[in-house]
């Protein structure tokens, strides 16, 4: 029998918090602003897109606390057990002295109306902790999830470039406190399950992966919340009831990344940010896509498991994973099964997942030598935008110059992530040349009948999908002409 605790416990700035009565859909932002009356963090959108509510959440990784920027508006309080939450109110010293990051922002005129500013400061603080002298590219990446409508960002970028001159992380006024807090955080991870509330107000924070599997099997109508980057919006935008909720973002076993000579296995709780190094190492072509998924805060929260499990037709990981032949590992209680990832997506809003069953991991075969692979995302705005379409291409061309194998998958072109089997058929067995490509593009219309919506028209989607195949071909023959943002 697993030991049970009756309180969500974490540290808010310098203060221990223990909550025994909190709703599962209580967001961190509402709790900060309404319950704690800490009103420095702002609500700009309540959907994790503008970053005005950015706070840092520290979690134990080995012996140290790692701080992630997150959007408090879609993070639930129930997911904070065993963490250290740092808000904008904590940065300025009690003597009124501004933190180096804050002073750099003031001196470089980085605020105008000021409403987005606390979020920018928190994102920059997170960046400064690990990279006090960041490049412009690093700054832009750290700020992908922060919108400013006044400054045009230029003075904020200037402040970010200068912030290292105002102080270094080793001299961070908050560093001593963090060291002292580490033991407190460790003590909170006491191996007990947390359970509070009843019925729709019930929150369960499982003690382990096995504990989670058992709880979910017994409570198949509960909502699983991992990164909350999707479920958060069910609450803030659609006011949907989500209780009872099982929070699993803390489970270390779900954050495993296993690699061998032939495949990479990502467990469901691995965030986009955590997956980036392994993705970059094994699938260099995917790293551009990876850095264009949402903004930094959402990549810190959102998980591979969630991106697949929710079955969205516009999730960005399924197309490349399907093209690479990924397998999905599902689990219900102690029962496990394995399916092809592409078979998981049955129809719009419908997946091959039984009650009480969850996505435990996904295995992605490494690209065999000699195969060609690429993935392209197309969106209205380059960064922090949902794909109009996302296409992944993989072919094997044999020594005779003939296509031996082709796997192509798209998001944004159908009601689910879907393979382009007609296009594949038009390629296989043909010489890998321009004539074959020009012949094959016509088959896209057989594979996809995309819709027109606010992201793109059907005509644009179809034409661009065809052009992406052309682009892929050109890249394989050494004619990669890609847009590059050239920054210092």
């Amino acid at each position, binding site marked *: 029998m697993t030991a049970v605790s009756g309180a969500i416990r974490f540290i808010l700035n310098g203060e221990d918090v223990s909550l025994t009565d909190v709703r599962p859909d209580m967001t961190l932002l*509402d709790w900060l602003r309404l319950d704690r*009356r800490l*009103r*420095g963090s*702002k*609500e*700009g*959108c*309540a*959907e994790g897109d*503008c970053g005005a509510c950015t706070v840092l959440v520290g979690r134990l990784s080995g012996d140290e606390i790692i701080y992630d920027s997150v959007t408090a508006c879609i993070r639930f309080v129930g997911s904070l057990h065993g963490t250290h939450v740092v*808000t*904008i*109110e904590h*940065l*300025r010293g009690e003597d009124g002295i*501004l933190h180096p990051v804050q*002073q750099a*922002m*003031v001196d470089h*005129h*980085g*605020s*105008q*109306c*000021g*409403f987005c*500013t*606390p979020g920018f400061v928190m994102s920059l603080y997170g960046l400064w902790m690990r990279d006090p002298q960041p490049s412009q590219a690093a*700054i*832009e*990446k750290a*700020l*992908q999830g922060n*919108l400013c*409508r*006044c*400054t*045009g*960002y*230029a003075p*904020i970028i200037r402040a970010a470039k200068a912030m290292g001159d105002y102080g270094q992380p080793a001299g961070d006024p908050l560093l001593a406190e963090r060291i002292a807090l580490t033991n407190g955080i460790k003590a909170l991870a006491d191996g007990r399950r947390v359970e509070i509330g009843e019925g729709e107000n019930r929150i369960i924070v499982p003690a382990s992966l096995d504990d989670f599997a058992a709880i979910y099997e017994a409570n198949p109508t509960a909502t699983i919340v991992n990164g909350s980057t999707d479920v958060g919006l069910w609450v*803030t*935008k659609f*006011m949907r009831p989500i209780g009872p909720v099982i929070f699993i973002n803390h489970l270390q076993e779900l954050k495993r990344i296993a690699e061998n000579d032939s495949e990479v296995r990502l467990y469901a709780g691995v965030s986009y940010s955590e997956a980036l190094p392994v993705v970059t190492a094994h699938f260099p072509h995917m790293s551009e896509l990876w850095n264009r998924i949402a903004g930094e805060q959402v990549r810190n929260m959102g998980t591979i498991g969630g991106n697949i499990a929710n079955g969205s037709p516009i999730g960005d990981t399924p197309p490349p994973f399907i093209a690479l032949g990924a397998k999905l590992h599902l689990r219900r209680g102690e029962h496990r099964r394995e399916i092809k990832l592409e078979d998981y997506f049955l129809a719009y809003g419908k997946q091959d997942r039984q009650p009480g069953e969850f996505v435990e991991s996904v295995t992605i075969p490494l690209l065999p030598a000699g195969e060609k692979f690429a993935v392209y995302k*197309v969106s*209205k*705005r*380059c*960064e922090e935008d*949902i794909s109009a379409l996302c296409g992944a291409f993989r072919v094997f061309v044999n020594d005779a110059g003939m296509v031996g194998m082709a796997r192509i998958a798209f998001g944004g072109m159908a009601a689910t992530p879907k393979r382009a089997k007609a296009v594949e058929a038009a390629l296989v067995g043909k010489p890998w040349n321009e004539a074959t490509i020009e012949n094959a593009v016509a088959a896209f219309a057989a594979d996809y009948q995309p819709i027109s*919506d*606010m*992201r793109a028209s059907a005509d644009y989607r179809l034409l*661009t999908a065809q052009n992406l195949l052309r*682009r892929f071909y050109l890249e394989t023959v050494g004619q990669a*002409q*890609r*847009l590059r*943002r050239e920054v210092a």
Partner: protein
Amino acid sequence: MNKHQAPITLASLHTPVRHDSGPKHVAGAAEYIDDMVEPEGTVHAYLALSSRPHAEIVGIDFSLVNDYPGVLGVLTAEDIPGENDVSPSHKHDEPIFAQGEVHFWGQPLFAVVAETRDQARRAAHRALVTYRDLPFIADVRQAQAEGGKLVTEPLKLERGEVDAGLAAAPRRLKGSIRIGGQDHFYLEGQIAMAVPGEDEDVTVYSSTQHPSEVQLMVAQVLGIRQHAVTINVRRMGGGFGGKETQGNLFACVAALAAKKWNRTCKIRPDRDDDMTATGKRHDFVVDYDVGYDETGKIQAVDAVYAARAGFSSDLSGPVTDRALFHSDNTYWYPAVRVRSEPLYTNTVSNTAFRGFGGPQGILAAERWIEDIAYALGKDPLEIRRRNFYGTDTDNVTPYHQVVEDNIIHRLVDELEASSDYQARRAAIIDYNQGSSILRKGIALTPVKFGISFTATWYNQGGALIYVYKDGTVQLNHGGTEMGQGLYIKVAQVVADAFGIGLDSVKVMTTSTGKVANTSATAASSGTDLNAMAALDAARQIKERLVRHAAKLHKVSEAEVHWVQGGVQAGATYVPFGELAASAYLNRVHLSAAGFYETPKVHWDRATGRGRPFYYYSYGAAVSEVTIDTLTGEYTVDRVDILHDVGRSLNPAIDLGQVEGGFIQGMGWLTTEELVWDDKGQLRTKAPSTYKIPLASDVPPIFNVKLADWSSNREPTIGRSKAVGEPPFVLAISVVEALSMAVASVADYRLAPRLDTPLTPERILMGCERLKREARG
């Protein structure tokens, strides 16, 4: 010296002082209305919105609403003691709550008042509304096709013999451009909090650019007189025009609830509702007919500017007027006729947005310039120059105002040289010849922007200054702070006038209780009006202090001089604090109300003649882009700007306005797309679907300079010029550069004629269309 005439040099002005709230912004300590400590018993209101674009309301069943926990009740049109109207045009066409009929998807039907915002919001979605659908008008072209109903009187500007000029022109072209709208996306959404007082009194904290209008609206809606209503606004989290009139409704609903239940009431819509229920920048369709000669010189222009006004007039009259006022940009038209059509549509009523129609007016003008250039196979910059207003001749606008302060020639010459425009353009043409998929473009575009409210009576400012016995100053004026740095600029003026440090001047929350009958902080005029009014107030106190000092130290008034930190009275230096203390003891009045009225401006709308603008601001920008002809994606690689703010009161603040204005304009013209579905519902209503620029959209090379040699020829405050709106228009250079890149796919032989916003889709489809047309 005329009391309105400012000294040309002010000792400590013109320095890059930081925004007064900067240290609070970065600490999360700057208070916005939602951050204020609510009085005990505060309740919350939430709007219920229509889900039809045009329909008869058959009935609303509130039973599920009233049953919801925490609900105090609902507010409908029947609960309004005064007028159910917040129309700023006073045409009585904008009800707070729809009655009988809804005219757009998102129109407020009623409000729910509950103990918490969450309860009010959830309850508001529980009403059962029955509609009978009516036909609806979705956009400008449909509105024109179905009778062209207008929400307000159109305007015509005319000068010269247009028909004869067109007929006689050696060359002629006709065309049209669709110009998209834009959501303000202020980071702080609409919000108001109303605190009931005794008798009829109510105090409203409103996120508004126009406190005096909110005061009027609240009084009108409550059926009380204006002196019972006080509006306060310390700061807004962005405005951009979106809080010039759009805050009225929220303030009125909060006030209605506050008075009905005698409890403080706060109202704040969520982002989706904010974007659905409040007005935006007008989208336009401009049809033009232009006559010109073989050199590209324009001979006559005839154009119709049709705008999506939405369901009510709001500010669509003055917005479409301003579009016509800018249909010339920097260009002399020997004959011109431009007309506006502010069209009724079943969409939210469009409103003020930075530039106020001016950017749309200018974009169309740049389009016909571009068309001429492609028709003649010339660099558009050559056509621009050929048509620039002269300095002494060819300088009369379509509204018969003489352009007296033209500096566009010098600005463009300097920018052309500093940006190395000609060499880069040649290099780009070379590059494009050798690049099949990626193509580049470059463009230099100018801007001339008229400064003053075209409603002449708005061109007045008020201020109220208190000097305390310790020499500290409270500064009140009628302008509101939305991030643009108005407070610090006016504080600089007052500190400078008294010779004291900025830390001795406290800028107070803008309040109708301190300065009455103020104008909206809009039309880029905040500093021009309010700093001059504050200076007038300071001048009055200074005159009294000089008299006092002369008497006290037994010298003539001419022997009293203002020096840093106080006055020099003959041989005696008196610190300002001591001066104030002794003035008090000698019964000298240490408060003053100041006033300013902009000179020279007048405008007769009926004849289309006058001088609506006190002066013009100028600027120019060069943008360079690269497009991907496989997907339509693009990058803006480099932007160079040279902008005229006269003699800058604060170069840091002004630079921020230019950079920020440009990027906001770039968003309008590139990724910010408003999409309505076939049911009439706006689908781009949150940052997940409506894409404003990010840090990574800022050009990697972004050289922004103020024209430091410029000085306003009119005696404005410190000879400065307005800065809020004009730089927004500089982003048109991005459109023109993208056009050039697209035109390259047809060897620059065809005018690309792209509509905005230039999403990747429009770029790709433009490339495809030009390739088809080039093939014949």
